[in-house]
């Protein structure tokens, strides 16, 4: 954890310097997008990585967070700084509601059940014209209100909001993972029956993990709403969930660096592949297949395995000498 901490500090300091090199434009846009989707990937990782359950409604919660911010700021005239936490709380509560029902199912059924919920969320957003603007979307969501003279409608400044949000997300996830609570989640991932017999209140732990995870999704959604300024229902649909799942898998499920690594890599790679025009998915599809075949642990997993092998070799040597 300690050398990891240094690494994270380095990443965030470097990231903070980016706008000085690229003030505005495409590079910053990519960076902000990467951070937004990485946050969503962190939310998903709390479930898939730490609790071992794969919910597929996360884009829905991302959408709820985004629309909550959009509607509250655009229609109710709230300040972004008020709407954002409200959106997070809303997502946590809805996560609780989802969990109460969804945890009756197990395994793949849980995944697909939540996929169904995700589809319903997207559909409801799409059909509820009066509130969400329906298919037309919600246009003109105001950027985050400025304070202390900082204008957050400027991408360069908003970039720091996104960066701070990402830092908070990573901190929250890291703390959860290394805690007494987090160890219980690991137990649940290892086997629910066993965790139950060890005295863990499996249901309540899963519920809280899901709430944390949907809250993070809503947190990311809020940033998205303020940044893009336009909301369409498709962002809440399953395609978004699967895309983010992809980021997570490529980065490494259950690792702390994985969500960020995977999102950065795939998001940027997809940008490059856009140049391939009609061939972009002809190349990207098989690439995905190869990725899960040859780097099943993801990028962070590769790293872990490598360093594990090194420490293992070291201890083995030590044992030999004993």
């Amino acid at each position, binding site marked *: 954890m300690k050398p990891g901490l240094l690494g994270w500090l380095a990443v965030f300091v470097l990231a903070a310097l980016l706008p000085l090199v690229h003030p505005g434009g495409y590079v910053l846009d990519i960076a902000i997008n990467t951070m937004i989707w990485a946050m969503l990937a962190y939310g998903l990782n709390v479930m898939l990585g730490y609790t071992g359950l794969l919910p597929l409604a996360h884009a829905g919660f991302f959408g709820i967070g985004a629309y909550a911010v959009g509607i509250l700021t655009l229609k109710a005239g709230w300040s972004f700084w008020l709407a954002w936490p409200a959106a997070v709380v809303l997502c946590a509560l809805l996560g609780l509601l989802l969990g109460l*029902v969804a945890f009756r199912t197990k395994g*793949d059924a849980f995944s697909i*059940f939540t996929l169904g919920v995700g589809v319903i969320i997207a559909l409801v957003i799409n059909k509820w014209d009066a509130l969400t603007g329906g298919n037309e979307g919600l246009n003109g969501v105001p950027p985050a209100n400025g304070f202390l003279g900082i204008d957050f409608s400027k991408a360069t400044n908003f970039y720091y909001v996104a960066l701070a949000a990402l830092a908070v997300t990573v901190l929250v996830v890291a703390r959860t993972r290394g805690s007494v609570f987090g160890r219980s989640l690991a137990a649940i991932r290892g086997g629910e029956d066993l965790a139950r017999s060890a005295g863990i209140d499996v249901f309540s732990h899963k519920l809280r993990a899901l709430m944390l995870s949907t809250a993070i999704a809503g947190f990311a959604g809020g940033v998205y709403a303020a940044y893009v300024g336009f909301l369409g229902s498709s962002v809440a649909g399953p395609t978004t969930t699967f895309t983010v*799942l992809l980021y997570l898998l490529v980065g490494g499920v259950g690792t702390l660096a994985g969500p960020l690594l995977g999102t950065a890599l795939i998001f940027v790679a997809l940008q490059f592949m856009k140049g391939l025009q009609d061939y972009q998915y002809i190349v990207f599809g098989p690439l*995905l*297949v190869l*990725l*899960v075949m040859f780097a099943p642990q993801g990028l962070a997993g590769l790293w872990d395995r490598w360093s594990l092998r090194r420490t293992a070799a070291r201890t083995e040597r030590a044992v030999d000498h004993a």
Partner: protein
Amino acid sequence: MTIFLQQLFNALALGGVYALVALGLTLVYGVMRVPNFAHGGLYMLGAYFTFAILTGLGVPYVVALLLAALGVALLAALLERVVFYPLRNAPHVHAMIAAIGVLFFLEAAVQRIWGADFKQIPEPLPGILNAGGVIITWQRLLVIAASLLVMLGLNYFLKRTLTGATIEAMAQNREGARLVGINVNRVGMLTFAISGALAAVAAALIAPLISVGPSMGEVMNLKVFAIIILGGMGSVPGAIVGAFLLAFAEIFGGFYINFDFADVIGFAVLVLVLAIRPEGLFRRGT
């Protein structure tokens, strides 16, 4: 009353198509434990193969349907070999992501080959049957009849033949199946081939009624996943019941409420059923 009957026929035809597509998916899930998100891609491919064979070779519709089924079956078997077999010991998410990769590939490749615009397959049996005000197109009757026939055949195959039993055995314990002398590689490919053929038959049947486009599989994907969850993942009778349940929910829900909400109603039924019976309507297994 005529309207009710009319909608009943619409629901039966839709349910039949859903069932065929869902059956293949549930089989593959049951045997390989792969949530095959490429299944919608196979369905889409079935429609394009039918289209290409019809326009390219000028053979009769039935021949085109069978050839398309064969083609997609072979392709699905290949898919099992190249993609899913190497991933058989990996966690489900991996196979799932790989399947999505395959879906991306299939859609892009089809768009590359046949273009992004819609294709139309002429109806082999044009015209309508007017039974006392209830109007049914011959194609819909064909869909209903053919899908029933295929389902009966599949059920016979699984329950009454030993090859069918091997599929079930492998669904439950791969290594155990090997130990009693079952060639699991062959069964795996066979299962994928069957699932591909079913999807292709469904596509060939429905294609004349709809427009064929590269992304037609995506919508179907979501529906059939809902169906097999509804029915209980891996359960064959569950897939059939789930398919008709969804079709009826969509059509009658749409009819009595609003067709724009048909999809919402379909998924709401799914969520409702699972909330009451978390394991689906039919528990997996025999």
